């Protein structure tokens, strides 16, 4: 663990303190309000040894990745259209801004009415709630491209594909990675809401089950599962970022 992720002392103290306070509270409140920490831990680890539970966790992870991948691809296309044509930008900007302002819960309702199957519903919700952020972040990265580097590259007369490969792609990679980090958190919150309302599997569905059983330990275990997933993927992105942006001075990279 130390080689891959080394937590700071402050992180350990803060989270350890929260666990202690929770455990302390469990002595004074009933288990359906504050279950003891060992009970939560037991339920959390039980998820990893039960095939059905793992499948539920895997379903949520798959939905997050599928939704983000779809949104990312669409966001890249929209960003390039907006970046290359001022006219397109004038039409697309207000549309994306409008879409961004619609709450996730409204998209859930719309998706349930529009789509029959669970997966298309959740995919639609994931894409609509994250595509604006992807588009804007990638557009910002594209527009921040150095005019001087552009002129320099152009002086060697590259073809379109070469121009994209040697200049545009390396320029927008940092923006793309930031977009993934930001949208991962958003997507994990939205997917739970979508599963809570319209799915028969996944972490959101499991949370609904625990709520109906009044099982606070189970609800917390599934919540921890989602948080752990997000943290692991974020670490993967940070490692990828460090590798891809190794050329930057240390101070400019993610700590």
């Amino acid at each position, binding site marked *: 663990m130390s080689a891959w992720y080394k937590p700071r002392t402050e992180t350990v103290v803060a989270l350890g303190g929260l666990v202690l306070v929770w455990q302390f509270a469990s002595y004074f409140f009933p288990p359906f309000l504050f279950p003891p920490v060992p009970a939560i831990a037991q339920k959390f680890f039980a998820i990893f040894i039960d095939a059905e539970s793992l499948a539920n966790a895997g379903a949520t992870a798959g939905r997050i990745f599928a939704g983000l991948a779809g949104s990312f691809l669409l966001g890249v296309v929209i960003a390039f259209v907006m970046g290359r044509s001022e006219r397109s930008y004038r039409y697309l900007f207000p549309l994306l801004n409008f879409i961004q302002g619609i709450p996730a819960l409204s998209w859930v309702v719309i998706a349930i009415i529009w789509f029959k199957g669970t997966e298309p519903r959740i995919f639609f919700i994931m894409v609509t709630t994250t595509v604006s952020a992807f588009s804007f972040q990638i557009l910002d990265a594209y527009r921040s491209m150095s005019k001087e*580097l552009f002129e*320099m590259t*152009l*002086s*060697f*007369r590259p073809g379109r594909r070469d121009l994209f490969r040697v200049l545009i792609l*390396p320029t927008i990679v940092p923006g793309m990675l930031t977009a993934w980090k930001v949208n991962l958190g958003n997507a994990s919150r939205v997917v739970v809401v979508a599963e809570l309302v319209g799915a028969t599997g996944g972490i959101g569905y499991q949370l609904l089950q625990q709520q109906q059983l009044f099982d606070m330990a189970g609800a917390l275990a599934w919540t921890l599962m989602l948080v752990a997933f997000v943290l692991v993927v974020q670490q993967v992105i940070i490692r990828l970022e460090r590798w891809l*942006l190794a*050329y930057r*001075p240390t101070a400019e990279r993610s700590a």
Partner: protein
Amino acid sequence: MSDAGDSAIVFRDVVKRFLLPEGREESFLAVENLSFEVARGERVAVLGRTGCGKSTMFNLLAGLIEPTSGTVRALGRDPFREFNWFRGRIAVVFQGDRLMPWRTALQNVELGIELLGRDKEERRAVALGWLERLGLKGHESDFPHALSGGMRQRVSIARAFAVGPEILLCDEPFSALDELTGQRLREEYLQLVKENGTTSVFVTHSISEALQLGDRILVFHRPARIALDARVAGGDREDIRRCVLEAMTASGTPAEEEKDAA
């Protein structure tokens, strides 16, 4: 479609007018009836201050913009209409080093050769040769942020020479360097241009630099047209310096020496 004889570069009655931003009807005249020729292998220094149209002249020559009227020819062809033909034939050394921060020194030198479609081994060998020639052996794997200003400018010079250009355009490449580094790089640059027989157009603000690097000095008026065309080779340098200074004063272009004296 060659119509330039022995000339590597021909500007004939070139006018370039830029439209001002939306809502304004007037246009900005950057180049006004600019005419000059540069012979193959000749080194021409262009003196002119910011706004005198030398960047526009550069962009016209590089084929990045089209003249409003007149003729621009490089190696007998139209650099704007036959843009891709000039791949590897024209290279530019800019005022700043303009290195790609995500590429190592070696990869930056390889850029132009890579865009020519040469295979990896060949371009690596060429780039390594140029880095060694410019005293950067041992820094091949360094990223630009780890190099000094002088080293970065050397990398950019190596990048330009690595494609083996017939025409080299230089836009004040040594102006941001300290005097000692600048002087050393000027000498190295001059040696490389002479050895390779490269036709070069070198823009500068300094008369001394123009006298050192050019066979000929062109002084630009504002908007760009020739205020003086002086041959350096074989002439009395003090006479040329005085003529250049007078031309620059008359064209409203203060030379560095003049400013220093003031």
